[in-house]
């Protein structure tokens, strides 16, 4: 069963909260770059294509930079 897992995924024990914030920074840069290039607002898909990630990952990363009580901050019970 270990092989199936290794076959399907390639990422290790990285906390999502940190990873999502890194994606968020890349999304922000891509957004600035592309909107300058196109001279208009850019879409989620355009950013996803630029960064070679899925639209879902773009969406999940979006408010991780500014919202203080955001979902991906560590929520301990």
């Amino acid at each position, binding site marked *: 069963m270990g092989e199936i897992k290794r076959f399907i995924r390639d990422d290790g024990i990285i906390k999502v909260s940190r990873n999502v914030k890194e994606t968020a920074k890349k999304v922000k840069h891509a957004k600035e770059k592309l909107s300058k290039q196109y001279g208009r607002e*850019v879409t989620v898909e355009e950013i996803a294509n630029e960064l070679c990630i899925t*639209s879902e990952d773009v969406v999940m990363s979006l*408010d991780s930079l500014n919202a203080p009580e955001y979902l991906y901050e560590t929520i301990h019970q």
Partner: protein
Amino acid sequence: MFKNEMKIEFPSKSQNEAFARVVVAAFASQLDPTIEELSDVKTAVSEAVTNAIIHGYENSSGKIEIECKIEGRTLTVIVTDYGKGIEDVELAKQPLYTSRPELERSGMGFTVMETFMDSLEVESEPLKGTRVKMTKEFKSF
């Protein structure tokens, strides 16, 4: 015409406000929105869900439902609670009106929803609950 829909329910816990925002954003992303359009929708959903939690259920426990529909390039979002309801909806919608100034709320929730979305309808009955319906049309590029 492109069509899709979904319905979600969750308890009125404060951490579910962020969750609701992501769910609606993920659903809306099928319309290939711009980041700005998506952020508008999230802000509006955030206000509606926060209202359900703090006013509708006054931080006690209750059920919140969100229905979303996509028809063509129009997104409809309906946020429903079965909480305390609103006596006077017209008054509640006035900019700066708040029934709980002690909470340091701004009284701008409904104004924000109206500004960030294309339409807003509020139906409410005291002790029955509140239903906030918003629509937004997404541009295409």
